[in-house]
């Protein structure tokens, strides 16, 4: 047997994050109860920053493979990883005060977040079905535990239970699809699978069945209709800091997973999966936008809005063109920045014993804090897709790529439901500016949170005015 020793430098970011997570676990054991988890928090942020520096430092334009071609380091992986670190850092920054108030400010929280980040890094640079599955399981396991971490709360436990049972079922379905593909191609490696598929498969029926199972698994993890039932319950039940995490970072990894599997692996049979994705995307955009109107809870409303945004992501991917993929990537990154701000705002307005997750809690925000109300206005306009915010350009790019492949009816459908969806975003703005506040409690004044929130809001506006840089990055990542 000839075995080539793997090039560990290529996988340095993963090794670094894993080592640091283990070190932080040990540091957590020795820290005193009184000082709280400040040291652990700072170390976690330093780890993410370090991983960012390593990833950027090791970046090369040509893809590198290691671990018997099961690990790939290319521009798409590096860009997604960089955003995963950044978004995770902002998530932790927003969550810090909230965690203390909710009594879940424990070492395990930070360690589980780091392991979840590790799982996502594995997913976006995996080039083997085995690794995609393992990375996904690592991520999911951390998320289940994070949702349940506030164990005295019945709502959290229920949400964690639902998430765990449905997530395990979806993982099983995904794994079954992968085993069928392995059965006909004889390989787990994504490059080898695509080579085999190029030569033509003898058993198209089995290939399609495997593909159906894999797409069901992917749709569940993305939260696309009709596999979306867990999304509102988990978003609503989880502590807001965990909702903030689940609603943002894993979407980047899910996009990476979709690209690795469907595009790197199954691009040859693009026609087969395109139809399935069209159905998923149409249902997600329609049902997500319509049901969000009926929600009185902001976390549930944002959950349904996530479902519709995932529909847009699928729209970009299903075109099967490089333009479509990069517009979907642009959309995913923009979406994570927007929902980072929106969920962060809920945390901003919460305080001990009070969750600002009802839409009426935003009444008269303009009188209480004009600057925060303005930030929320930008975020909501961006989610609705109103120019000049970046949400408009993200939707525009996806729709352009859909139109250029000749599916004008699909673009029209998406636009109609986006207009319907604009209603519930604008309702928040109406509540903030034209209603009087019922709640006059002071808003938290932590400087780091306020600065980050301002940067977050201004970024949504700034990227809308100058979208070219990020767009160019996404184009470079795909081609």
């Amino acid at each position: 047997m000839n075995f080539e020793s793997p090039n560990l430098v290529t996988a340095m970011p993963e090794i670094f994050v894993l080592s640091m997570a283990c070190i932080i676990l040990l540091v957590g054991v020795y820290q005193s109860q009184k000082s709280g988890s400040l040291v652990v928090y700072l170390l976690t942020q330093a780890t993410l920053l370090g991983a960012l520096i390593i990833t950027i430092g090791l970046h090369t334009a040509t893809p590198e493979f290691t671990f018997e071609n099961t690990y790939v380091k290319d521009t798409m992986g590096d860009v997604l990883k960089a955003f995963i670190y950044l978004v995770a850092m902002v998530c932790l920054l927003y969550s810090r005060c909230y965690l203390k108030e909710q009594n879940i400010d424990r070492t395990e929280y930070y360690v589980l977040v780091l392991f979840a980040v590790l799982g996502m890094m594995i997913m976006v640079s995996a080039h083997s079905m085995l690794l995609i599955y393992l990375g996904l399981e690592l991520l999911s396991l951390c998320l289940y535990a994070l949702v349940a971490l506030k164990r005295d709360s019945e709502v959290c436990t229920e949400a964690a239970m639902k998430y765990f049972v449905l997530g395990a079922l979806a993982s099983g379905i995904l794994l079954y699809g992968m085993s069928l593909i392995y059965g006909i191609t004889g390989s787990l490696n994504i490059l080898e699978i695509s080579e085999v598929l190029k030569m033509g498969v003898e058993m198209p029926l089995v290939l399609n069945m495997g593909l159906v199972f894999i797409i069901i698994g992917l749709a569940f993890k993305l939260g696309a209709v009709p596999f979306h039932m867990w999304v509102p319950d988990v978003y609503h039940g989880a502590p807001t800091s965990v909702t903030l995490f689940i609603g943002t970072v894993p979407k980047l990894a899910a996009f990476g997973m979709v690209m690795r599997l469907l595009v790197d692996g199954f691009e040859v049979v693009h026609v087969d999966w395109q139809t399935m994705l069209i159905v998923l995307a149409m249902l997600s955009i329609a049902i997500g936008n319509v049901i969000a109107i009926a929600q009185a809870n902001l976390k549930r409303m944002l959950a349904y809005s996530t479902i519709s945004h995932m529909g847009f992501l699928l729209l970009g991917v299903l075109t099967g063109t490089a333009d479509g993929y990069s517009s979907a990537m642009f959309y995913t990154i923009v979406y994570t920045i927007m929902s980072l701000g929106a969920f962060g705002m809920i945390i901003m307005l919460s305080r001990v014993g009070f969750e600002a997750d009802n839409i009426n809690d935003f009444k008269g925000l303009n009188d209480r804090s004009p600057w925060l109300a303005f930030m929320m206005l930008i975020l909501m306009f961006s989610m609705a897709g109103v120019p000049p915010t970046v949400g408009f350009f993200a939707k525009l790019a996806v729709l352009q790529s859909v139109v250029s492949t000749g599916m004008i009816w699909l673009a029209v459908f998406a636009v109609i439901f986006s207009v319907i969806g604009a209603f519930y975003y604008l309702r928040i703005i109406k509540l903030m500016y034209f209603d009087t506040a019922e709640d006059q409690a002071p808003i938290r004044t932590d400087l780091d949170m306020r600065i980050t929130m301002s940067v977050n809001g201004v970024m949504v506006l700034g990227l809308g005015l100058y979208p070219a840089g990020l767009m160019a990055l996404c184009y470079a990542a795909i081609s």
Partner: protein
Amino acid sequence: MEIQPILFYVFSAILVVASLAVITVKNPVYAAFSLILAFFTCAALWILLEAEFLALTLILVYVGAVMVLFLFVVMMLDINISQLREGFARYLPVGLIVGFIIFAQMAVVLGPDTFGLDQIADPVKHAADYSNTKELGSVLYTVYVYPFEIAAVILLVAIIAAIALTLRRRPNVKQQNIDAQVRVTKEERVRMVKMTADKKDEMNQ
């Protein structure tokens, strides 16, 4: 006729009966025991497929550890079976229809027409000195080192999550502090009190 096909059919029959028993018997402890039997016969089938290492691991890990845990849980929980069986008759027709459709679809796609012996050749039989364990060992830490490490990390996360979700510190509970007990000196516990001797008749009052 060779002995192997006979063994295969015997073990398969036991496996099917045991698996059916898992979901049909009323007593959950019997169901757990049937599952153990199912694992055992499954391991026997794997040995027929020359996967000795996996077969033994299945017995050691699943029968030895997981099923013992299952039995403990089943015996410790107070499960009300009649409550679990509520609505069984109502859901049965839907369940049967869905189950039948899934079975039919899988039979069409995965039946002998696609994965039969005439489509995919019989695997080569190895000599008696062939070691399945050695083959696994030679690739586990070389070709599959990366997935192997990730699997280890997943187990670590499972440990962290299990402890984080179940460990409860109760500051109000009174506990024995053995360390302090051992280190105690006589000055801390015994106090010499000087008293004047009292007269007998005064004490009796």
